[in-house]
């Protein structure tokens, strides 16, 4: 049975099957894995079999031998898959807009500073992720904004 997962914001397909003992196996990136798990504490499992690793997890966060990753089902995914290809510059987190450095109609290059915001008591500069023209600015100086909302829209230049 094919199944899609979102791992670190990237879509990954695995193939689930049952072996002769009735245990779940899966194929990932061309390789078949069979395994056993045992719960070792409230948040950790020891995965044995083909994989010998201590895995801790909470909600969609997993730590495998110290390395962090997020794993989610596509239909339950809380994080957006990489969407920055579009020209929407978003706030990384809730904060306050300190300075708007561009106006609608301005031509900007990748890396140009667009907005300075304050979040967690530090200044963050929102930069253009591509060349383009500023088509909309959604906040003005002094306003509070939520996390993950559009701050500035860029329309792509036709070269």
């Amino acid at each position: 049975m094919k199944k899609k997962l979102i791992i670190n914001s990237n879509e990954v397909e695995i193939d689930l099957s049952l072996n002769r003992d009735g245990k779940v196996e899966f194929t990932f990136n061309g390789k078949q894995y069979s395994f056993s798990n045992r719960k070792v504490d409230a948040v950790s499992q020891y995965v044995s079999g083909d994989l010998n690793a201590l895995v801790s997890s909470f909600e969609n966060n997993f730590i495998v031998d110290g390395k962090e990753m997020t794993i989610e089902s596509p239909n339950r995914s809380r994080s957006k898959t990489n969407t920055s290809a579009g020209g929407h510059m978003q706030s990384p987190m809730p904060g306050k807009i300190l300075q708007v450095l561009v106006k609608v109609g301005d031509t900007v290059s990748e890396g140009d500073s667009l907005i300075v915001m304050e979040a967690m008591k530090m200044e963050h500069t929102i930069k253009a992720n591509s060349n383009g023209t500023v088509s909309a600015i959604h906040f003005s100086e002094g306003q509070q904004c939520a996390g993950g909302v559009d701050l500035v829209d860029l329309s792509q230049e036709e070269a």
Partner: protein
Amino acid sequence: MSTEILSKIDKILIANRGEIALRVMKTCKEMGIKSVTIYTETEKSYPHSYLSDESFSLGMGPLSETYLNHEKIIEIAKLSGAKAIHPGYGFLSENSTFAKKVTDAGLIFIGPTPHSMEIMGDKKTSKVEMEKIKIPLIPGYHGDDQSESVLKAAAIDIGFPVLVKASAGGGGKGMRVVWKEEEFSDALASAKREALNSFGDDIVLIEKFIQNPRHIEVQVMSDTHGNHLHFYERECSIQRRHQKVVEETPSMALDDKLRKSICETAVAISSGINYKGAGTVEFIMDADGKFFFLEMNTRLQVEHPITEMVTNSDLVRLQILVAAGLELPMKQEDITQSGHAIEVRIYSEDPDNNFMPAIGKIGHVGSPTLNNVRLDSGYVDGNEVTIDFDPMLAKLICWGVDRDSAISKTLHSLNEVKFLGVTTNRDYLKRIVDTTPFREGDTYTHFIDTYSDLLKPVEATDLEIAAGIASFLTSNQTEGSTKVENSQAWNRLQGFRNI
């Protein structure tokens, strides 16, 4: 000793939150002193609000009405019967007006005199004082004329690169390095804006920017009987945007002679201004071992635990003792450095995405298991990390018989302290201490920029991802839908097989 202290100070109000409130509380408990803490209405689930002997709500509102509200805090102290107030660090710890009000209210302020705080609290005043007692200073402009043309002329005179710094600043806020004359105006405007936002004051000073510098600081402690001691150095060269990330002691850059010289200079300062209590003298040291006075922090420092580990002392205990008017119970020659200690600061941020601050719910903090490893954290399982307070979640402090051992312990312990649920710089810290330059002691304040290539994330291997998938497939909470689709298999999987 204890009864003498208790007769003066048997109850302390801790005017702070998070890990530092818990740190001060720990010493109170060890000394049999009752502790009183304060919290805002949104912090009822955080341990500083319920682990003390008494705790009082500050209500809700901006910091000026809660943790920075002088009158309210003093009122709570009097109401609770506390004899003294410990300010921790940050918040009111270096506010001389508050210290005065505390004393005027008949309470003991655990810290230096308001006068010392005033001298050292302003970077300009402190440098003038230091010049008087012949302490080496970095070339710079500390004048009152703040017009852009004068500041720019001063920068040109000193020679680029220069550092623009908020006079009232700290923690890297309101600070900019300017490499070229053309960049000066923009950098000045930005530094002034940040300074005004953070400190309500946009006076700046300009200094020669020293390249390849190390940040070396000396812990001092003075009593009111004329004893001015030092507890050796800490090296805090590993910084990002002027915020310390990794601290260690002893410093690899000091030999016995240099160590003696820098520590004695620090004591010349503390005795020169007749200081009282715990303080830290910060120096910048160039590649030739020439050091210059940067500033003195008139409080306990975030990274004080590494000094405690290496000198086997409790600095908060000594602060309380001095505040009670007692004499320090040791002589300089009794204080020795033993082994090596490293502190790493765990921040809720994503180092692999431009260090964006992260928020979320901590599912599991985790705890270190090795000997002589200390986790100073203000969070417990289930706590939310919000944008309301500093993104530092915890400090992990590892002591080893030597530096290599301290590094090994740091690497291992960072795997144990997981802060599951929130994105942290945990893996990034591991990358820093595991680099060859760090292991060789090649630590300069630009370390993180210089070696950014060595600090890039290592992609998880297929095997590691597969282990994550295996765990995901069998974890109930994330896997409602698959269970229904393939219920037979999942029923079989529920009985984990021990192999």
